[in-house]
């Protein structure tokens, strides 16, 4: 059973006459009541995917194919004009870099009312404020925040306000794009607790949680997807993936992040030799091939198939051939 599932999602940015293939045939499932974690190097397309998934791609992004099945309907991701009605209520985005997400000349309460009124035109201001105050309280913010302008709040408070606003309309699917990276440890705790609680109480039916912090994900997420160069290369239950990643990129990524020393938690991915590929031309084979220690001859030219085994899947020729060999035997 799935709450939301994306299939066949491809998109590119245009800049002048150049194209930048940011997403290449992405498929993902979010199950009801679960948190799906997404990890990957900086620039691999996580925020791009978040913008498409939250039905609000930027003006320079062109979605060329893709469907989002959610709540019993299929949303054509290329047809952005039909998305507005679903934004905020069906899917909502908790954006990366929340510090500037608030309109500098609008009070928090007024902004919250705008958001609620976008879903329910008859809602009264008082009702909006009451609901917002309740949500703010869950994040340990005093009601006076309603009357504040963004510049009157500290960075951590602003992040929490953004979180409160993003979840205000109890969206079915919440897409959180690195909501925790700018936070101190205790604010992070609060945020993670709130997200968990929202899912547990059924106010939000599922969450896609994007982060660089694999350690955090292994606690918070039910399943984890690993992205590389605009593709999902592996997806598996969180514990399995952290314990035994299959895809060579996932292995390298985990090896470089999960150094068992305190203080390295949440560090950006470093230590995989080589650089991510240039995405200005589509890549026919496996994008990881130039950096992969296990690369086979066909890796550079042929697209690795997606191999589903039980609860997990990955897209790699090595796994595919190992599986084939197992069958032959």
């Amino acid at each position, binding site marked *: 059973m799935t709450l939301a599932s994306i299939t066949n999602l491809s998109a590119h940015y245009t800049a002048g006459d150049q194209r930048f293939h940011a997403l290449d045939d992405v498929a993902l499932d979010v199950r009801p009541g679960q948190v799906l974690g997404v990890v990957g190097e900086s620039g691999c397309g996580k925020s791009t995917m978040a913008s498409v998934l939250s039905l609000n791609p930027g003006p320079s992004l062109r979605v060329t194919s893709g469907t989002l099945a959610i709540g019993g309907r299929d949303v054509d991701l290329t047809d952005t004009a039909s998305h507005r009605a679903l934004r905020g209520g069906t899917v909502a985005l908790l*954006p990366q870099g929340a510090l500037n997400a*608030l309109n500098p000349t*609008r009070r928090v309460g007024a902004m919250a009312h705008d958001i609620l009124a976008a879903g329910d035109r008859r809602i009264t201001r008082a009702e909006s404020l009451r609901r917002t105050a309740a949500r703010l309280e869950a994040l340990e913010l005093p009601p006076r925040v309603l009357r504040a302008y963004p510049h009157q709040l500290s960075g951590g408070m602003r992040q929490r306000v953004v979180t409160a606003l993003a979840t205000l309309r109890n969206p079915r699917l919440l897409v959180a794009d690195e909501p925790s990276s700018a936070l101190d440890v205790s604010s992070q705790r609060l945020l993670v607790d709130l997200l968990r609680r929202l899912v547990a109480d059924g106010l939000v039916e599922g969450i896609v949680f994007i982060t660089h912090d694999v350690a955090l994900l292994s606690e918070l997420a039910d399943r984890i997807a690993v992205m590389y160069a605009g593709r999902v290369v592996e997806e598996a239950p969180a514990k399995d993936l952290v314990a035994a990643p299959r895809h060579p990129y996932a292995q390298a990524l985990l090896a470089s992040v999960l150094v068992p020393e305190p203080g390295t938690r949440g560090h950006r991915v470093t230590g995989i030799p080589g650089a991510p590929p240039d995405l200005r031309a589509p890549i026919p084979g496996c994008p990881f091939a130039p950096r992969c220690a296990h690369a086979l001859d066909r890796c550079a030219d042929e697209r690795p198939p997606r191999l589903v085994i039980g609860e997990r899947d990955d897209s790699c020729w090595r796994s595919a051939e190992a599986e084939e060999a197992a069958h032959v035997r």
Partner: protein
Amino acid sequence: MALLRHILSKLGWYAAAFAAALALNFFLPRLLPGNPVDTLIGQALRGHASSETKQRVYETYVAEFGLDQGLWSQFLTYIGKTLQGDFGTSFSRYPAEVATMIGDALPWTIALQLPAVLLGWIIGNLVGAVAAYRRGGFDRSVYLSSLFLTAAPYYCLAVLLLYGLAVALPLFPTGGGWSFGNSPEWSAMFAVDAVSHWFLPFLSLLLVFIGGQAIGMRSMAVYEVDADYVRFAESFGLPDRKIVGYIFRNGMLPQITGLALAIGTLVGGALLTEIVFSYPGIGTLLYDAILNKDYPVIQAVTLLVLIVVLVANFLVDVLYGLIDPRIRAAERGER
């Protein structure tokens, strides 16, 4: 009272600028070589009347402005008189008081400029914000037509409108403040007549203001439409008009400063429009005064424009303090 402090701190600056304007107005013409005020009077009265009239005018002027004294005491006399609202006597329409002439012309100019500036500001900024938000074809056509409206000097648009809508296609009167044979009075008939004369010059100013503001707002709003807060608001499916409102409010803040800085050019340009339409305001008064070398009138008009510009700047500063919560906060010393 943060706002009060904000205003007071600005007030000192404006007092200095006002003093500079007064000095400029007085000394500039007098410091240039070979131009004693005598010559000016001589020129103004050239070909005029008998030598007796000439003598009388001359004496009036010498007495009024203390021309027999040194430059500094003349300046003091000038300041004293100016502060009392006494601008002396006109050369060309002797013995009319300059202050009365200005008083007669001013209401017409205000009736023309004030609505055009306010309406043009609002419409122009809205159009600019919408253009930046919509992008694409709408944006391009708004941009080019606004650029055209601002690029062409005020009076050129005025010439085109006057010829197009009053001469070639006689929909409106061809100029003046009212019809020949009518005279200013408080009656419905006169009001209708005056409005029909007012409309074309008003329209020409309005269009120019809209163009200028739209260009300015668009270039501010282009920075805003990509801002995180706009993307965040969009992600909730907020209606376009709400989002344009957000952009408008944020893009407007720098636009207000822009308005303050541009107001001198606006007022100056608008005066030239009056000339094209022979509209009986300050601009036409100035034009006639220059033709007749009516120095006291010219000086009074330039001073008036300087004062208006300073006052407008000051008001805009106050307004800015009222609108931007960040300024209010900074004044209050909040973070």
